[in-house]
């Protein structure tokens, strides 16, 4: 079990220069193992800056990040150990691949952790299997793979470290629909297997409706909402005001309701919509 708490976090870019900009201001929240938290917000709202504080890649000007109640900066020399507990998959992570073979690249993180050769081998093979990376692919150069495959290899490189908390920054950006599905499914699978706390920074309300349990909404550096997906999406006015929206299918249902058709507005994914509408066909009444 791991708990991540953020207390009054404030970060200013380029302090005391003509380009000074407050990226996040006074952000406070707390999350615990087993949750998938979607971090959403307009471009430049401070999402990426916020998550880079979790494993100490950025150091806040004021405020704290607590892992299980202890400040991650308590002992600055031990920050690497924190990074083994809190993994981070950056935007377009395939651009960080560098080894000769996929196997070696996935092993980079576990090797840095100082694990035994046996442990490293087991972790690499387990993670590869979970992410559908075949034995044949493991021996290839990562630069010979397709875009979606590269992305999975890069994600495997972080998952092989088996962090208790894992952050994904736009994990599905630039992937085709099939690639998106696989990545989201694998993230969920990782959570189910390890009980980790997962953060996903995303622009896609549809993706978030599918995988997230809670949503953390950022607006120009401030924490605007932190609640269950249902509660956040039931407030479309507030979301629109900060340049966000509810999923497409939810819009369809609210439009239906406005036209006087008595349907439930709290439908966030296409799958939910299908089963909701099918229930009308079967029983003639809705299941609420």
């Amino acid at each position, binding site marked *: 079990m791991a708990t991540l708490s953020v207390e009054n976090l404030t970060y200013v870019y380029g302090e005391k220069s003509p380009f000074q900009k407050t990226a996040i201001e006074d952000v406070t929240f707390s999350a615990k193992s087993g949750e998938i938290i979607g971090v959403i917000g307009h471009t430049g709202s401070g999402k990426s800056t916020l998550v880079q504080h979790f494993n100490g*890649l950025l150091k806040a000007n004021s405020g704290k990040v607590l892992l299980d109640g202890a400040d991650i900066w308590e002992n600055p020399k031990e920050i690497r150990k924190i990074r083994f507990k809190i993994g981070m998959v950056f935007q377009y992570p395939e651009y960080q691949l560098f080894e000769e073979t996929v196997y070696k690249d996935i092993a*980079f993180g576990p090797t840095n952790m100082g694990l035994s050769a046996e442990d490293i081998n087991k972790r690499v093979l387990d993670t590869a299997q979970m992410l559908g990376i075949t034995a044949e692919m493991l021996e290839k150069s990562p630069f010979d793979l397709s875009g979606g495959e590269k992305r999975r290899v890069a994600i495997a490189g972080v998952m092989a470290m088996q962090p208790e908390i894992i952050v994904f920054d736009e994990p599905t950006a630039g992937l085709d629909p099939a690639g998106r599905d696989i990545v989201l499914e694998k993230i969920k699978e990782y959570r189910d297997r390890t009980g980790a706390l997962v953060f996903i920074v995303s622009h896609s309300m549809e993706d978030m409706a599918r995988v997230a349990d809670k949503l953390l909404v950022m607006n120009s550096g401030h924490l605007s909402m932190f609640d269950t997906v249902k509660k956040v999406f039931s407030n479309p006015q507030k979301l629109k005001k900060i340049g966000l929206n509810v999923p497409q299918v939810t819009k369809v249902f609210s439009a239906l309701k406005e036209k006087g058709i008595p349907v439930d507005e709290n439908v966030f994914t296409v799958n939910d919509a299908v089963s909701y509408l099918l229930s009308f066909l079967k029983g003639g009444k809705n299941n609420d």
Partner: protein
Amino acid sequence: MIKDITFGQYFPAKSIIHRLDPRIKLVLSLMFIIFIFVAQNAVSLAFIGTLTLLFVLISRVPVSLFLKNIKAILFVIILTSVLNALYVTTGNVLLEFWIIKITADGVKRALFMSARIIILIISSSLLTYTTTPTELTDAIERLLKPLRFIGLGEAVHVMAMMITIALRFIPTLIEETDKIMSAQKARGADLESGTLFERIKALIPILVPLLISSVRRAYDLAEAMECRCYNGGSGRQRMKQLKLAGRDYLSLAVLVVCMSAIIAFNIIF
């Protein structure tokens, strides 16, 4: 962090110096630097120092930025002062100790040299603070245009284009390096400790992705340029036409007057 490296230190502000034609600014700066060395006595050097200070104030660039540049070469200033003070052994002896002999002339010489270096740094930073790197390359390209008469027209254009592209991509590459470093640090890469050999080895996870993305970027850029029918310098026109305005002629005139004053001071005093 790596982001702290400033390159092309342009400082945006609204001043007549910012608005001057970059060609004029470049020529004026070069002439100004030559005249720092033409100034032979205290009066003319004081005059040129006062002028520099005046230009700094007009430019509206914070004085602290200039001080930062002087601080960066403080060691050179101190070293030249010490060497000058030691080597000049004429005049009244102020201090004599073992083989070291400090004289009034030596101290004078040291102060004079330090003042020269400081003025040199301030005036050249004034150019880079008030001119964007693109403007500067533009100016260089235009000033070297006469080289076309000896068949180097295309070469000048290619050089200018290369400098422009290089300058354009420095911030991008810094950002990219920063990102890759963060990503590898998140995977537990240790960049800060270990023996020299270990540290060099630790750079591989940074350099390989950086090299690959640079090559990819170069291809993308080349394709984008070809798509827009770029085929070298001949017959190209500019979006930003450099045109001399009244203020440019005025500043030229001011400089000529100042330069004559320096020569006069050199002779009189």
